[in-house]
């Protein structure tokens, strides 16, 4: 079965600093999803990557999928307290979510100090 490993498990940064969260898969990724979750709330969709080498950005958050499609990184530039939360990567098991389910990493807890 597919396994996703996120690193670091937790991260504490000062406001304004850049940071990176990694997600490594044991198998080739057909689709890689990044979500953000606040404690006690549902998952907020951030980005989805499918092609090797693909990179997407939304506001100050950039996600990349490496060429071999086994690792993704999420980079936040000039972090703000509003970026705090749990970041989860999820992998499509086969051929996109229309055909299957997502397997998730354990999450990275981000704290941003003002």
């Amino acid at each position: 079965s597919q396994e996703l490993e996120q690193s670091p498990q937790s991260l504490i940064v000062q406001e304004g600093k850049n940071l990176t969260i990694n997600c490594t898969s044991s198998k080739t990724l057909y689709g890689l999803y990044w979500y953000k979750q606040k404690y006690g709330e549902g998952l907020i969709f951030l980005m989805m990557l499918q092609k090797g080498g693909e990179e997407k950005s939304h506001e100050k958050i950039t996600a990349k999928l490496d060429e071999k499609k086994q690792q993704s990184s999420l980079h936040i530039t000039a972090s703000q307290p509003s970026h705090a939360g749990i970041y989860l990567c999820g992998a499509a098991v086969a051929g996109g979510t229309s055909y299957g389910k997502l397997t998730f990493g354990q999450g990275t807890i981000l704290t941003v100090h003002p």
Partner: protein
Amino acid sequence: GAGVSQTPSNKVTEKGKYVELRCDPISGHTALYWYRQSLGQGPEFLIYFQGTGAADDSGLPNDRFFAVRPEGSVSTLKIQRTERGDSAVYLCASSGSNEQFFGPGTRLTVL
């Protein structure tokens, strides 16, 4: 509606009782997923519907868990003879293409 909704937001029950959790997906989304999330963990897949049928129920932990989607829209997750180990946040998601959108979840506590 604008997003995926789930009811109730919180459910406290006693061991051995029956519970039903409801999910209202985004209008027009044919795919619907149920996940379960324990504290400090990522969501774990339970079951996936494409239309009215369960296309993949391999994540259901045992036969106490059952889900239906009779009209291809709203889905209900049913848990019989609840156990303390069933306590978790139950998340529902729907998808119209490749993106998958989640609801706020139902926090189930079994005493």
